[in-house]
């Protein structure tokens, strides 16, 4: 990865997550176009946009699930791709919630939550299990600690997945369409947990189309289209007075029903 001279020029302010002129290609397709975006500590940013606009790719870059091609991406003060950056270490500070949950099917809910704390964070098992039980109780699954993912509903699985991330005591939480794979009646139970996490001051980037969630806890909404950030503003500004044709067209589609 090459460092971006423009990026180095304004090193004055560093957010928790700092994109500076980031580009990424899948083959010939420019999936991230010159992304510049800074997320402050404790800030909650909602990313929305049409399918294929690059929003998932954007947050997958933050914990290195996708590599960036050029530009700088600085997370918690560490530049991705820098030889001095220990990516495995950095990932322990970043929770990632997947659309398809990706719980470990051979582990119970509690084991899902304690696996990385025990083996990666090296927290003593007894302590990790105590933490894990508390976290599962916090997401409303205190009675499901010994259940396997296959025995849980989608909403319950996603709440276990959130508890699994929280078990690592991360500084940042990333959510990649956390409610898109859920039946409608299960969406709110997951959003409630996310609101609680946000209200505790977690730095969050959330890819979602849940406008209620955005209005409630987001400081900022970022609208992406065709790999670029087209518009960004407070939820109030964005939903009430979208500035571009593309965001107006997008909002009219998702708000219609």
């Amino acid at each position: 990865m090459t460092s971006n001279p423009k990026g180095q020029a304004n090193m004055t302010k560093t957010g928790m997550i700092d994109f500076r002129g980031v580009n990424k290609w899948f083959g010939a397709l420019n999936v991230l176009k010159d992304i510049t975006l800074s997320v402050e500590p404790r800030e909650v940013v909602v990313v929305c946009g049409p399918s294929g606009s690059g929003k998932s790719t954007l947050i997958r870059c933050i914990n290195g699930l996708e590599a960036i091609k050029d530009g700088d991406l600085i997370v918690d003060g560490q530049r991705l791709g820098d030889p001095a950056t220990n990516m495995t270490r950095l990932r322990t500070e970043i929770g990632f919630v997947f659309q398809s949950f990706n719980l470990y099917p051979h582990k119970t809910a509690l084991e899902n939550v304690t696996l990385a704390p025990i083996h990666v964070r090296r927290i003593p098992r007894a302590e990790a299990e105590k933490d894990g039980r508390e976290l599962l109780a916090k997401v409303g699954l205190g009675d499901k600690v010994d259940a396997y993912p296959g025995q849980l509903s989608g909403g319950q699985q996603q709440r276990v997945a959130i508890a699994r991330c929280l078990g690592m005591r991360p500084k940042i939480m990333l959510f990649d369409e956390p409610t898109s794979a859920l039946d409608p009646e299960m969406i709110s139970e997951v959003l409630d947990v996310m609101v609680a996490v946000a209200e505790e001051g977690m730095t969050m980037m959330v890819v979602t189309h849940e406008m209620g969630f955005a209005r409630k806890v987001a400081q900022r909404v970022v609208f992406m289209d065709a790999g670029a950030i087209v518009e960004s503003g407070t939820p109030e500004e964005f939903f009430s007075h979208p500035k571009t044709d593309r965001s107006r067209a997008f909002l009219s589609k998702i708000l219609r029903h």
Partner: protein
Amino acid sequence: MLENFSFRTIVEYLPLFGQGLVTTVWLSLISFAGALAVGILLAAMNLQRGWLFRVPAKAYIDAVRATPLLAQLYFLYFGLPRLGFVLPELVVGILALSLNSGAYVAEIIRAGILSIPRGQVEAGVASGMTYVQRMRLVILPQAFKVTIPPLLGQAIVLVKDSALLSLISVAELTRAGQLLASDRFMPAEGFITIAAFYLLLYYCLKGLAALSGRWLGLQPARSST
């Protein structure tokens, strides 16, 4: 016709068949353990991104699967001494079965690992696990369950393949049948008896497969989506 069939001779030779059966069982067990070791190593090499390990592993697997086991056995039995390695026939036999079956086991294990959804790897990566931790804690325990039934299938093949070791005078089950056939000129008695014993071994392994299947059924193998 059937009055010529001598059950008495079979009973007379039963101790010999018993010894052969025992030999077949333990040399198959050792060979299968060897095949697992070879297979795990080859599968690990074959799953690497770089060509340095992957290409030799693929070449080995292709070479073994493309050539007859008998040719491989003869190469080791007759060829190795000419190259300066003189080994007892039993060792050569176990080596041949391990090296041969290992190539098939490698493909079973590789398929098992690749059958685990990509999201499982990503979940491990995202929580800061190293490659080794991901394999040990997330991928292999799941892949292991998927591979048990085909591995038992491969074990059945190995038991039958072990009959070829009679050709390098290992005193296993088929060898016992050959002895009866040649000493008393009773091929029907000799070979029907060993067939019965192989059938017995087959049902044992099949029972084991069914048991493991029931055990695997206790827990869901895959999360939804």
